[in-house]
């Protein structure tokens, strides 16, 4: 264990990724400000990226031929995250124009 702490390997990366993920999920579920919710979503995506890269590193050390797949995947995740952020913020702007609010609990048109 001491060795593990001094020499962190794959599992530590994954733990960090998992923690970031959980924090992001908690942010999505608990915050009222819609922008902050979006930022939490970015956290989640980031955690996933970390996971990919960690595995990519691990696989390259254990000699798998597919080591770069993780990095390739990460590129695409970043692309998608960027696109999604752009669209999502556009929606936020439109929503703000219509409802003049950024608090999500005031947007409850689906309430019975």
């Amino acid at each position: 264990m001491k060795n593990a702490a001094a020499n962190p390997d794959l599992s530590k990366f994954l733990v960090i990724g998992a923690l970031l993920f959980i924090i992001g999920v908690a942010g999505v579920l608990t915050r009222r400000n819609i922008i902050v919710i979006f930022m939490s979503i970015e956290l989640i995506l980031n955690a996933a990226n970390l996971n990919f890269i960690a595995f990519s590193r691990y696989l390259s050390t254990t000699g798998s031929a597919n080591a770069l797949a993780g990095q390739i995947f990460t590129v695409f995740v970043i692309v998608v995250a960027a696109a999604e952020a752009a669209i999502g913020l556009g929606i936020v702007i439109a929503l703000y124009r219509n409802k003049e609010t950024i608090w999500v609990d005031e947007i409850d048109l689906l309430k019975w």
Partner: protein
Amino acid sequence: MFKYIWLVPLLPLIGAAINGLFGRKLRFSERLIGGIAVGSVALAFLISVAAVYSYGFGGHPEWPKPYLTSQDGFSFNWIPGGAVSVNPRAEAAESPRFALLNIEWSYQLDPLSSIFMLIVTGVGLCIFVFATGYMHGETGFYRFFAYMGLFMFAMLVLVMGSNFLMMFVGWEGVGLCSYLLIGYYFDRQEAANASRKAFITNRVGDFGFALAIFGIIATFGSAQYVDVFNQAKSFPIELLGHWGILSWIALGLFIGACGKSAQLPLHVWLPDAMAGPTPVSALIHAATMVTAGLYMVTRTNVIFQHSQTMLLVVALVGAATAIFAATIGITQNDIKKVLAYSTVSQLGFMFMACGVGAFVIGIFHVMTHAFFKALMFLGAGSVIHGMHHEQDMRRMGGLKKYMPYTYWTFMAGWLAICGIIPFSGFWSKDEILWNAASTTHIPLGWIVWLVGTIAATCTAFYMTRLMAMTFWGRERFLEAPAGGEADEAHASAYDKGLAPHDAVAPSAGDRPRHEPGEHVGPVHEDATHHVASDGHGDHHGAHTPHESPASMWVPLAVLAVLATLGGLVGIGPAFRSLTGTEHPGGRVNIVNWLNPIIWNPATREFNAPEGAHEAAVPAETAHGETAAPPVAEGGAEGAAEAGHGSATAVYGDTGFNLAHAVENTTHSELATEWIFILISLVVAGIGMLLGALFYVWRPALAGIWSQRLRPLYIASYNKYWVDEFYGMAVTRRTMDLARAVFRFDSGLVDGIVNGLAWLSRQFSRIVGAVDKYFVDGLVNTVAAFIMRLMSPLFRAAQTGFTQNYALVMVLGLMIAVAVFFGRDILAVFQR
């Protein structure tokens, strides 16, 4: 050429179809319609003439063998049948078409059908031409000719068919067309009544006919003439008092003939049928349809000659009808009714001929009757037309100078029907009476002769009366208006406030609508009486009778020539000193022509051509001998001499024979024949003289004698109340039965049904109540309970708050994790 006889029925049918289907829609002109109709019949006539000529006289004459179109393939298998349980005798027959009852649609050309073909198409052609003139101006012109064409088709199928079923099809078809044509003025009450009466009375006869056909098929196993008659000729003869299967068949056939040919007691429809247009009366009720019964009886003469009882029945019914109708005709005032009763009477004569065994003479009389009766009907039509649709003879008179063509042609018909030599009626009527007197087929021949002679006297009397009242004497129409809207029917309808076409009066025959002022004769004094209710009152002025156009009198002339000369094809054996042979003219002589289809009971074969003949005086064998019927071999020339004399031996002792009695006195058959000829001429002359006396020289006598013989006059004028009797006994009782059955049905049966319906309704009410209160209550309670229970819960889940939904997603993720790793996770804690 006779291969193409199948075209003969087809052409009028095509013409009728074109006229009927397109006549109104495409608005054919009268000329076109008339042209199509007349053209189709003319073409059919020409083909018939060519066919008969090539059949009988051409290069390779088929006569006397019957020619069937199926021999050349112009036929089709109409009713392909299965096996029929046949008479075992039938299986032994030679005909190959036998194991299955196959009904084919093929036409037969043989001596009998050829004569009828020519009569139907020839006289029909004259009548069609006449009708184009008579029906001018009618809106239903196309309909008339469509029905007439259809009638021609049906009649030709009847006479040209090769089996009994085709005859029945034609039978029914002419009945239908008779209905359609009598009811041509369908908006007139009495025309509608008359057409219904005709059809229903015919139907009674058809019932008997149909039973007879069933009997024929059951007995002989086939319906084709050639098959049936080839078998029938070897059946045993059923003498008087013995009633066998052939007598039953003959009875059924005769009932059919009574219906179609208006014999007692089914004669009642023919006088009423005069409500149809006059060409219809001429064609259907004088020349063709009513003779269908004769055709049928002659066609099946084998069967009739096998049943002496039926021959007697036929002769007696014919005689009774002849005298019955003749006595009624004496007192009728409507010109068409007189001719109608005359037709009934003459048909009686024809059946008399058949009954005494002289079938050929019966057909001969059909032919001559067609000529002179059609002539007289058309002449009457011409008179009616010229008198502006006046039919009552009491308002005619002196027309001979107004309508000369009509007058002279009518005179030819009058002389023919009275039986004056050398007009056609003489030859046939005289032969009938001679055969009645000398018959050895049935007993009581002398009674038949006597009744026939009296009827001939009456015939001469009333026909002369008709001539006198119509053409000679005072012009009675100048004294009071006649025709058009001035006649009785219109007046009576007007009095009752009805429209003229609701006219129901005995003299209201075929009349199209008339404008006020249309009549013959002087203008009425009380002009307001007969003016139509619209109050116009402008009179067009009275007309005088006028001669008919050429399209009407030319056919009259043609028929007059035929009525004058047509009898020469049947010059009888009495004239053999002049002509050299018994039946002069070889094949043209009708007796020689028709003989091969007549079965000879002595030889038990059909007559050989130019061989045995029917009308011979009994030969050397003495009468009164009862000898067993000889079982003769096939027809050989040796049977020629046997002829009538063997008939005696065949039918047993037939009692007193008038001709034999006379011959025994004079010891010369020639003298005997001439005596009878003279008797018939004398009685005809007596009738004519009496008619002239009563209606030309001393008109007052008519009134005096009708007073003196008042009961007889009333009986005759009211047609012996036969119609009233039928109405009381048959029609009203049937209606009563119908009403009773209806009451039963509506009361009991409908009551049951309605009661069940009422029960169902009550039941459904109960069920409905149960459903509404119990079931629905249950459902509502349960649903309401659930709703009140669950609704807030479900509603609470719909917060509209997105993060709640995200929370649920996370919850789902956790459940997935738990599902996949739950066991392992728990294992960790258990360690």
